[in-house]
């Protein structure tokens, strides 16, 4: 692609260079002299500061007041805590069950099975979790923070996503270390992490654990006016370790979500057509590129159905799948049983396999 270069007056550019060098170096000089001024008086300042600090300590000690003051959570910290705790709790509590080996073996034999279908379970869980971001509903605004007194935790943060209540109890110290737990209904996850703030940089790491599963989310922001939010996710679910990068890009009227796992990529966006909402996704899986249109509808039993129209290579396919969250209550009971009885887990997986094979129609282009 041809570069677009305006014609530039070289002489003018050279004059500008000398002017810029002079002015920048002058500003640097001023900055340094200001610093050296303070350096000179550093010892005196340090002495005065230490005396004041000593005085404050003495006053506090003698008045008998409790020196403990909880550190306040600021707006950015709260927003990012809510987002990362929601993402980690949502993924870990749904304990993404990737397509089983047997299922995959059958799929490999069937030429008409697209790469997307082989990864659909995992994609679906991420799609459900990230839909709240794509729908551009800032659920973090509705989070309620409560300061707890004389309890195991300093703070309680409540928020609702898709009608589900997330309760996050946490402590954090002045070094930014976080410990806590997240509860969604009867499911509980143990959490630890760390905040770091330097000038215009903000970093947050949060790890949620449930039984042998864990998910660690790292968030880093370098500018305050970010239009893209990036999360690095490291997870170990059902003894399978993986790393993903999730980018959420906010624009005035649209939101895009990109999921990158190694060489694989999903780019998801949402738009409206004739009054109905359509999610469009471009992907690259195992070096195969494809597109999926996802539409959402409600069936006669009130269940949410996602219809996928997949185009991958020479194939075009339509698949209908139920929203896994609609079986939430049943799943919750299953999970409790699973913890006691491994046999039930195997049966549940077989049930999941059956769900995937519903209403598939295939034709070659």
């Amino acid at each position, binding site marked *: *692609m041809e*570069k*677009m*270069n*305006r*014609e*530039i*007056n070289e*002489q*003018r*550019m050279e004059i*500008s*260079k000398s*002017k*810029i*060098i002079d*002015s*920048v*170096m002058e*500003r*640097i000089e001023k900055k*340094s002299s200001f610093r050296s001024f303070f350096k000179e008086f550093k010892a005196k300042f340090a002495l005065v500061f230490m005396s004041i600090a000593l005085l404050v300590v003495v006053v506090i000690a003698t008045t008998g007041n409790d020196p403990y003051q909880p550190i306040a959570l600021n707006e950015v910290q709260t927003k990012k805590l809510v987002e990362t705790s929601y993402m980690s709790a949502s993924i870990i509590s749904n304990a993404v069950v990737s397509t089983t080996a047997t299922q995959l073996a059958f799929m490999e034999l069937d030429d008409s099975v697209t790469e997307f279908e082989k990864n659909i379970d995992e994609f679906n869980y991420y799609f459900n979790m990230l839909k709240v971001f794509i729908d551009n509903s800032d659920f973090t605004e509705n989070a309620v923070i409560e300061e707890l007194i004389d309890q195991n935790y300093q703070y309680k943060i409540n928020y609702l996503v898709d009608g589900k209540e997330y309760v996050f109890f946490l402590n954090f110290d002045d070094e930014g270390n976080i410990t806590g737990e997240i509860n969604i209904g009867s499911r509980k996850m143990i959490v630890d992490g760390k905040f770091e703030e330097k000038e215009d940089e903000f970093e947050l790491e949060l790890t949620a654990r449930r039984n042998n599963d864990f998910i660690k989310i790292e968030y880093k922001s370098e*500018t305050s*006016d970010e*239009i*893209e939010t990036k999360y690095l996710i490291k997870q170990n679910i059902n003894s399978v370790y993986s790393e993903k990068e999730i980018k959420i*890009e906010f*624009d005035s009227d*649209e939101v*895009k979500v*990109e999921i*990158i796992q190694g060489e694989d*990529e999903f780019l998801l966006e949402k738009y409206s057509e004739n009054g109905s909402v359509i999610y469009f996704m471009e992907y*690259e899986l195992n070096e195969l590129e494809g597109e999926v249109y996802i539409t959402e509808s409600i069936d006669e039993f009130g269940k949410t159905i996602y219809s996928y129209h997949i185009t991958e290579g020479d194939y075009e396919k339509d698949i209908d799948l139920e929203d896994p969250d609609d079986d939430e209550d049943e799943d919750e009971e299953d999970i409790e049983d699973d913890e006691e009885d491994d046999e039930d887990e195997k049966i549940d997986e077989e049930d999941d396999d059956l769900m995937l094979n519903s209403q598939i129609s295939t034709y070659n282009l």
Partner: protein
Amino acid sequence: MHMEDFEIIKQVLEEDKNKYALLIDKYHNELFKYVYNMTNSYSETEDLLQEIFFKIYKSLKKYNQKKASFRTWMYRIAKNYVLNHLQSARVRIKNNTYEYDDSINKSSEDIEEMAVKNDQINKVLGVMKQVLSPKHYEIMHLHYFSNLTVKEISETLMIPDKTIYKAIKVSVEKLKKEVT
């Protein structure tokens, strides 16, 4: 090349801040072209570059040569600064006015050619802003107006180069539709 920059940075940070002038001297012209392509104004480019080079100096301690070359790191700062600046309504109005330069000394054919080219660039810039998402806009403005390669744009924006290629392809198609 890379080591040279790092050596200068080390000296600036440790012993001789005046060495920073070497870095300005080295990168001034390419950043000037990049910024001027976006602003179409010499005085505005000069003002922006002063701020950008000072900002780079202030951030020098944060530079990590393991993560990016100094050049792409510098572009990251310049890109953020210029785009933020251009987003303000005040600047948008100012951009529509032309500044006097010595083009009067050129032949009338040259002036006409320059004006057509400037108009084309302004049009493309306007369309880019309208039809591209912010991320694609960032990619395309680096692609068109800087001398960075796709690999360098990838390093500047911290986005995989495959995504950059794809974004350029999609954006060019969108722009072609709008411009033609």
